[in-house]
């Protein structure tokens, strides 16, 4: 227990001994962990959005203005007969306009539009989310739908969640790869920095270490202060990163949510707490590995 106190004391002394390199290693750890934290939070947000889009497993088939009512009815009957379809309803042009007016905040725009640019649509609710693609394909390929579809290409007249999800995935995948590459790079830089800081600390205490070995200090006792120093830098970096994320969460997140009201961004406090714990653990691992590397190379005991 007393040697733990000694390690901590030595670690804090190392702090003041090489202030600039110490700050350097703390800042690199802080930035790496901060960015890891941002990506973690972002990944959770995107996950939430993807889930909410997936849960809206409905298909909207837009119908041309000059489609005959009989064709529309036949189409509805056809769709009702498909596997996985729970309910089919029809939205007229007028209803669509009314819905739009209710949705957007100022109804005046709608009034100024003059005509009604919105198409009528058939809304299909599915009993099984997995069936979205097959139902959509069947509607798309049916001759009837070709006749009544709003656009020339029937596929463009179909809107369903799966497509949005796919598009989201392709975007988020890119973001994820960039994120991982960035994190790997930053972790590497932090390791190099910690390695260097601990190396300097070892150099500064070379004489002391020689005497410690001479009088029979155990290897653990000689290594302890340096491991503690690396861990201390990492913990300080992690705390800074967590603090900055907490600040962002309270200042930036509400604004983001306000401007993107239709997306469910909300992350609860527990998730953030988890992120902070992950950052702390990652920081500790980086700090300990970094100083262990330095000791392997520069501290022969």
């Amino acid at each position, binding site marked *: 227990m007393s*040697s733990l106190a000694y390690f901590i004391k030595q670690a804090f002394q190392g702090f003041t001994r090489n202030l600039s390199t110490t700050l350097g290693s703390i800042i690199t750890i802080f930035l790496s962990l901060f960015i890891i934290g941002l990506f973690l939070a972002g990944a959770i947000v995107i996950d939430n959005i993807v889930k909410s889009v997936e849960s809206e497993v409905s298909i909207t088939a837009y119908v041309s203005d000059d489609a005959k009512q009989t064709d529309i009815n036949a189409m509805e009957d056809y769709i009702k007969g498909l596997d996985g379809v729970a309910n089919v309803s029809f939205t007229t042009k007028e209803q669509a306009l009314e819905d739009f007016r209710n949705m957007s905040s100022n109804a005046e725009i709608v009034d100024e539009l003059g005509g009604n640019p919105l198409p009528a649509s058939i809304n299909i609710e599915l009993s099984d989310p997995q069936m979205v693609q097959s139902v959509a394909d069947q509607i798309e390929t049916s001759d009837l739908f070709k006749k009544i579809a709003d656009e020339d290409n029937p596929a463009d007249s179909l809107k369903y969640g799966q497509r949005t999800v796919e598009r989201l995935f392709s975007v988020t995948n890119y973001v994820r790869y960039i994120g991982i590459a960035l994190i790997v790079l930053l972790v590497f830089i932090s390791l190099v920095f910690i390695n260097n800081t601990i190396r300097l600390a070892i150099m500064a205490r070379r*004489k*002391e270490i020689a*005497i410690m070995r*001479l*009088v*029979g200090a*155990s290897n653990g*006792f*000689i290594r302890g202060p340096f491991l503690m120093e690396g861990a201390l830098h990492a913990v300080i970096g992690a705390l800074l990163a967590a603090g900055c994320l907490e600040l962002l969460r309270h200042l930036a997140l509400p604004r983001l949510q306000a401007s993107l009201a239709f997306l469910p961004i909300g992350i609860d406090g527990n998730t953030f707490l988890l992120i902070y714990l992950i950052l702390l653990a990652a920081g500790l691992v980086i700090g300990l590995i970094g100083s262990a590397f330095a000791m392997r190379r520069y501290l022969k005991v």
Partner: protein
Amino acid sequence: MTEATNQGARQPRNAAATQSMRSAPDLSTALPSLEVDDIPQQGTPVISFDRVSKVYPAQPNRPALENISLQIYPGEFVFLVGHSGSGKSTLVRLIIRELRPSSGTITIANEDLGSMRNWRVPYLRRNIGCVFQDFKLLPNKTVYENVAFALEVIGKNRNVIRTQVPEVLRLVGLQDKLDKLPDQLSGGEAQRVSIARAIVNRPPLLVCDEPTGNLDPQTSRGIMDLLERINRTGTTVLVATHDREMVDNMRRRVIALERGHLTRDQQRGVYGFDV
């Protein structure tokens, strides 16, 4: 046991005087023999070398030590003499296992250094006090702190430190200099601090590598008196030196090395090299 190679060092105490006369050069008889109690060489040797050789990779054709066999028993005071490069320091570094022998076995207090695991080495060194020519004191710590440091880093608690450090500093005669920094001390005082640090943990064995190499003869005499007093408390003392006057004056067991070979091992010996 390799008695044959020890050139008669393994004699009973009543034969020691004649033995030294026979194997030592004329100088040995010319000098007065001081009243020194012989230490009976019995029990388990503190240090035992069995056909130890050490070859440094840089000089593969010139072994630093070759086929050295010797035993040092508890309570002995032994001089290790020889010119520079004769292998004295190599031998000292083998004893504290800073080096490993190229061949042969070294046994310290019944423990074979060759098969000793790395993590055990610190515990070996706690039983060996070390003193060097360059003192190896920490310049930013006071005399008291320098000695206390040796106890701190082996995990001794504060009460032990508070009682043992002033005691050992009184023993070496530095009770008035506790708060001085090393660069405020004379060479002799600095060496006393380093001796105090070496014995503060009360090791059964004290190894000194050129303890008086930096000091004038008078100060050296003081250091040797101190080592002798430490020896009288039962500590085995091994002093590697090329200080002719000291060895000749004290008439203790002398082990001589020449270019890595053990050339002489005698009780109440003399330095014996022509300079």
